[in-house]
């Protein structure tokens, strides 16, 4: 891939999705976009870039989707789900005993493994949660992955990565070669398409926000902006869960880490620096930190 094409794609992805590729990610672009180029009847990445330069909106969306879709597992990294069961939910069960409701947002819900893992955890607590209103909102940039999530259909490989076998037996049915998560678990998750760069204040307030392995792709200014807007949506005693390679430390003081629970953060009540959505102002992203 030549340098002008690479720079064009970098800028396009940054403007459209906030995805911040470093200068050496050509291989990533090739591995994700070559299949897409072939599907569109194009011979190379150069041909694909030419179509994009000509202004094909459909192709732009497909490119953004292909580049921002990530592999995910049930109970990915295990530890955040242990925190959820052992720390987050026990505390919320006490703190929300009167209100009897809990709202959870999976901000990078992807193909559903994370929200459904949480739903299965909550199902295990059904006695304690009897009479409670439990909401799990799964959002993602990509409509394609949301559709897969909604279907609840997974391959044999996917159900074996991280999903304890007892959960498979209990919560899935075989559908031909595939496995489908049961309707009662599917019904616990609501799906919405959402770009984290855009305003998301309409989602309401949350007790728990899982925002894992998505901020790593954003530049520093964008991360700070998103943290500020997440803090505004969070109950004062809520919990933020980040991925293993992510932190708020050195970026913002609107959240603080819980020393004894890696990856778990709580709001501090500090006022964020600036919290307007970035979606309408892509130039801000382009200029930030460069």
């Amino acid at each position: 891939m030549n340098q002008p094409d690479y720079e064009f794609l970098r800028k396009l992805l940054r403007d459209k999705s906030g995805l911040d590729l470093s200068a050496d990610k050509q291989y990533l672009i090739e591995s994700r976009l070559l299949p897409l180029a072939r599907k569109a009847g194009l011979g190379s990445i150069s041909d694909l870039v030419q179509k994009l330069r000509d202004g094909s909106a459909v192709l732009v969306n497909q490119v953004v989707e292909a580049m921002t879709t990530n592999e995910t597992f049930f109970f990915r990294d295990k530890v955040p789900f242990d925190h959820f069961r052992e720390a987050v939910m026990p505390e919320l069960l006490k703190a929300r005993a009167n209100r009897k409701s809990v709202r959870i947002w999976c901000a990078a819900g992807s193909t559903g493994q994370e929200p459904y893992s949480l739903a299965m955890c909550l199902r295990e607590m059904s006695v304690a949660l009897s009479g409670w209103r439990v909401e799990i909102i799964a959002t993602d940039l990509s409509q394609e992955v949301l559709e897969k999530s909604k279907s609840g259909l997974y391959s044999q490989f996917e159900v074996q990565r991280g999903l304890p076998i007892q959960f498979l037996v209990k919560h899935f049915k075989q559908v031909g070669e595939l496995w489908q998560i049961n309707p009662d678990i599917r019904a616990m998750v609501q799906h919405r398409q959402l770009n984290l760069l855009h305003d998301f204040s309409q989602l309401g307030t949350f007790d728990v926000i899982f925002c894992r392995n998505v901020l790593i792709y954003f530049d520093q200014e964008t991360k700070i902006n998103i943290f500020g807007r997440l803090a505004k949506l969070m109950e004062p005693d809520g919990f933020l869960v980040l991925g293993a390679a992510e932190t708020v430390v050195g970026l913002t003081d609107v959240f603080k880490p819980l020393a004894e629970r890696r990856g778990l953060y709580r709001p501090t009540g500090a006022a964020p620096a600036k919290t307007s959505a970035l979606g309408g102002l892509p130039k801000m992203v382009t200029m930030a930190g460069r």
Partner: protein
Amino acid sequence: MRTCLVVDDSSVVRKIARRILEEMSFEVVEAEDGERAIEICKARLPDAILLDWNMPVMDCYEFLGKLRRMPNGDQPKVVFCTTENDIDHISRALNAGANEYIMKPFDKDIVSAKFQEVGLIQAMPS
């Protein structure tokens, strides 16, 4: 070093399992049938057993029963690893005392995830 006994009549499966388990820092012992596997367990109990469903000489249930009745025979984590991929087989294996269940074909990610699940290895952030 922790040990894993691989019980499978297919030498190809044993070879693939050996490669994956050695990458995960397990010492691997192989058995081609249940009878040989019992002999190995009598000599020294492994930490983990990857067990095929269809075995010649002694079937998996007879093996599992004999293993669990040995002194400390409840210690090894037994992970079924088979082509029997329907829910009835899986439930039967769990009721018989299996700790986990892998459906063939499998790869390192799957073995690693299942071994984490039964506490044989620590979870590493991906």
